[in-house]
């Protein structure tokens, strides 16, 4: 494959960013919007060309059937040492090709959708510029040939996410949310960075191919190296995973994602549902062969994923803001993917169940991107219609917004895992992998799947059924065409995506693999999902006091769930009370009063001394003489004493 197309895939969004960023102010909204769409459209076409060529062109398949990892180009960017070199390149392999498709698709749809959604907003051009920047960064991230390139784009997506969350910069909450998102992920990135440093010290390379193909050999020097009881490799991998946790909003570092919903809804769809937040999953997948080496690291991935999935699902059941529900659902679903990756390892340096987990994770990443984007865009349409994020302002909307309603329903069914929608297939694979790893994990994840179905349909019913609030003279209606097209398209994809023979494209060892449904697991999961949907329907189909009763029955649980288990408050306490008031302020005080005070006190002491010895110069000539003679005598006398 020539380097032109891949290069263009990266170059066009970057160019669009610069163009819209610098010249955008002078453009009309329409022009900027269409330019953005055009750019992204071109990228979409190019990306599809590249990805499909990769999947279907035999030159990328070895005789064994293994898909070949190809570095299309790799340009040295910064050479730290002979071995440690940051290159900017383009690595084409199954998962990057997959991500190319996902990113460009969703990004293009969001571009299109935003034409309607963002119409008339101040800073429309800026919005498109940032979207392009994000697309560029995300594409750069997934095609990274080395871990440092990934880190670079990792930071860039963080920054574009910051800019987009804070798009409504006049709103305090948006500014705060963007700041929070950036800092929390920054903190995680610190771990990522140190992880990279540790790993690269031992491996003496950043290169993914070197790291993943001969992991054993490259990392041989870590053998036996331990730090505080754990092996160095574990430390490195866990630290790198910390970076992934930050971006993918895993449990202790998830707090930024719900707040990130302050950004425009299409942005949430693109960044905080479909693409950026799965970067953590992508990172672990990318490093998967290395993770295989270390049992405890995959264990941690799995456990963190499982806990997060459950936690997020619980919280999602109690949220009022529909975007928050979706956000927690995203967290939960990404956790599914993490779990899936974690359970792909059998703990002995080999994969478990033919590496089903890995495939399932990628599959779920793909399907989730589609249906979650659909849900977010649907939510966007709703918000666009009623100008509120809370479901309390909605209800009975199925009458007014039929298209939205049906597409939303498809999304809900997909996420709930109802066949034949796409979510069913991918989730089922994950559950299979989890059962294969440990039955407990399987059951746990099934419960989470049931909760997923419940909260999604709770949301659905609350929006489209329940009781109709007073919309006044401003009746809601379906969105305009640019917003409609993406909804319908994504709904269609969600219906059919499950039938893609995903195992033929993406597996851990890049060998084709046939998916087979385990009927027991499939049936059980569908059964619990349907039960959960029924429960949701029972509780929320029409306005009734049942939810209120439930809430009052378990006030503590509800409270904790509603307040997201007080994680935000905890963080607030740590950052404001401990770091700010406990460290920064005392340090600043210390600096001003102790350090600076010392410096000033030199001056003060000098001044004081000068005042103290002033009487020496009394103006009395007899005193002068007295000092003189005493001085001379002392001078001589002390010398005499010293000599003796």
């Amino acid at each position, binding site marked *: 494959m020539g380097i032109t197309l891949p290069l263009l895939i990266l170059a066009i969004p970057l160019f669009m960013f610069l163009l819209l960023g610098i010249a955008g102010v002078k453009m009309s909204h329409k022009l900027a919007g269409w330019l953005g769409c055009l750019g992204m459209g071109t990228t979409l076409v190019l990306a599809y060309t590249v990805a499909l060529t990769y999947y279907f062109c035999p030159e990328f398949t070895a005789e064994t059937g293994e898909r070949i990892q190809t570095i299309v180009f790799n340009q040295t960017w910064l050479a730290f040492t002979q071995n440690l070199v940051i290159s900017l390149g383009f690595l084409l392999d199954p998962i990057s090709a997959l991500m190319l498709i996902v990113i460009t698709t969703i990004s293009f749809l969001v571009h299109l959708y935003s034409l309607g959604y963002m119409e008339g907003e101040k800073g429309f051009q800026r919005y498109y510029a940032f979207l392009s920047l994000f697309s560029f960064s995300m594409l750069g991230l997934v095609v990274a040939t080395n871990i440092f390139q990934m880190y670079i784009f990792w930071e860039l997506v963080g920054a574009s996410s910051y800019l987009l969350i804070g798009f409504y910069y006049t709103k305090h909450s948006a500014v705060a949310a963007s700041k929070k998102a950036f800092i929390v992920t920054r903190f995680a990135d610190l771990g990522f960075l140190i992880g990279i440093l540790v790993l690269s010290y031992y491996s003496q390379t950043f290169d993914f191919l070197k790291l993943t193909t001969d992991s054993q050999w490259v990392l041989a020097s870590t053998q036996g190296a331990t730090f505080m009881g754990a092996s160095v490799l574990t430390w490195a991998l866990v630290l790198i995973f910390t970076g992934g946790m930050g971006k993918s909003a895993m449990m202790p570092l998830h707090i930024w994602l719900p707040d990130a919903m302050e950004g425009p809804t299409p942005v949430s769809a693109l960044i905080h549902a479909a693409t950026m937040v799965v970067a953590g999953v992508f990172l672990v997948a990318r490093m998967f062969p290395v993770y295989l080496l270390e049992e405890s690291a995959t264990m941690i991935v799995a456990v963190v994923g499982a806990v997060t999935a459950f936690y997020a699902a619980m919280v999602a059941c109690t949220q009022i803001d529909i975007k928050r529900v979706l956000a927690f659902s995203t967290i939960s679903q990404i956790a599914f993917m993490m779990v899936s990756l974690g359970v792909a390892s059998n703990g002995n340096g080999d994969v478990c169940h033919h590496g089903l987990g890995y495939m399932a994770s990628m599959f779920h990443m793909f399907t989730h991107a589609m249906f979650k984007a659909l849900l977010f865009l649907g939510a966007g349409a709703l918000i666009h219609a009623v100008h509120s994020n809370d479901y309390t302002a909605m209800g009975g909307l199925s009458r007014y917004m039929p298209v939205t309603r049906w597409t939303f329903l498809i999304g809900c069914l997909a996420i709930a895992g109802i066949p034949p929608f796409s979510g069913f297939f991918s989730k089922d694979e994950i559950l299979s992998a989890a059962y294969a790893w440990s039955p407990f994990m399987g059951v746990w994840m099934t419960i989470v799947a049931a909760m997923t179905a419940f909260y999604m349909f709770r949301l659905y019913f609350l929006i489209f059924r329940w009781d109709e609030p007073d919309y006044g003279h401003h009746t809601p209606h379906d969105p305009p065409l640019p917003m409609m097209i993406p909804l319908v398209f994504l709904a269609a994809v969600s219906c059919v995506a499950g039938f893609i023979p995903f195992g033929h494209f993406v597996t851990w060892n890049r060998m084709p693999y046939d998916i087979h449904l385990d009927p027991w697991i499939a049936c059980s999961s569908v059964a619990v999902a349907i039960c959960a949907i029924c429960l949701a329907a029972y509780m929320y189909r029409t306005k009734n006091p049942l939810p209120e009763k439930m809430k009052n029955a378990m006030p503590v649980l509800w409270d904790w769930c509603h307040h997201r288990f007080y994680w935000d408050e905890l963080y607030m306490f740590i950052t404001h009370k401990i770091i700010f008031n406990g460290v920064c302020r005392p340090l600043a005080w210390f600096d001003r009063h102790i350090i600076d005070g010392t410096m000033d006190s030199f001056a003060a002491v000098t001044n004081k001394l000068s005042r103290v010895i002033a009487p020496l110069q009394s103006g009395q000539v007899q*005193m002068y003489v*007295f000092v003189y*003679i*005493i001085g001379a*005598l002392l001078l*001589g*006398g002390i010398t*005499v004493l010293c000599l003796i």
Partner: protein
Amino acid sequence: MDSVGSIILYTIVSLTIVIFSVLAVTTRKILRAATYLLFTLFATAVVYFMLDYQFLGAVQIAVYAGGILVLFVFAILLTSHPGHSSEPLTSKRRALGLIASVLMLGVTGYSLLARCNFFNAAPEAANPDMQQIGTAILSTGDNGYLLPFEAISVLLLACIIGGIVVARKR
């Protein structure tokens, strides 16, 4: 072995020096101080004579007693009323003076006493005659004092000019 006479003379002279020095700086009446100074200077001259430096003794009497002291007396009469006594010393100032002079006496006295060759008696030596002195003062060679002699003339001239310019009314 010195004669008894010279020992007696030494005793008188040294007592005079000590007593009148002390009196000169402690008396309240300024004119008396000048008089005591005169006695001290005379006693010094006597010491010079004792040590066979007659010329020096003569110079001492002529210049000091005859010149400087007269100057003092004139100055005293010019600046203060006769019989006027200065105010008593403050004890603080007196303490300072005592400290300084006792310290000086102690340290230097110790140094002098510690030096054993100061306990030599005076060796016999020829009395320098006037011709010797005169030659030395105008000689340019080793131990000749022509240069200081000329230089001090400049100094004296300068002091005259300085004295005039300072004392002149305008």
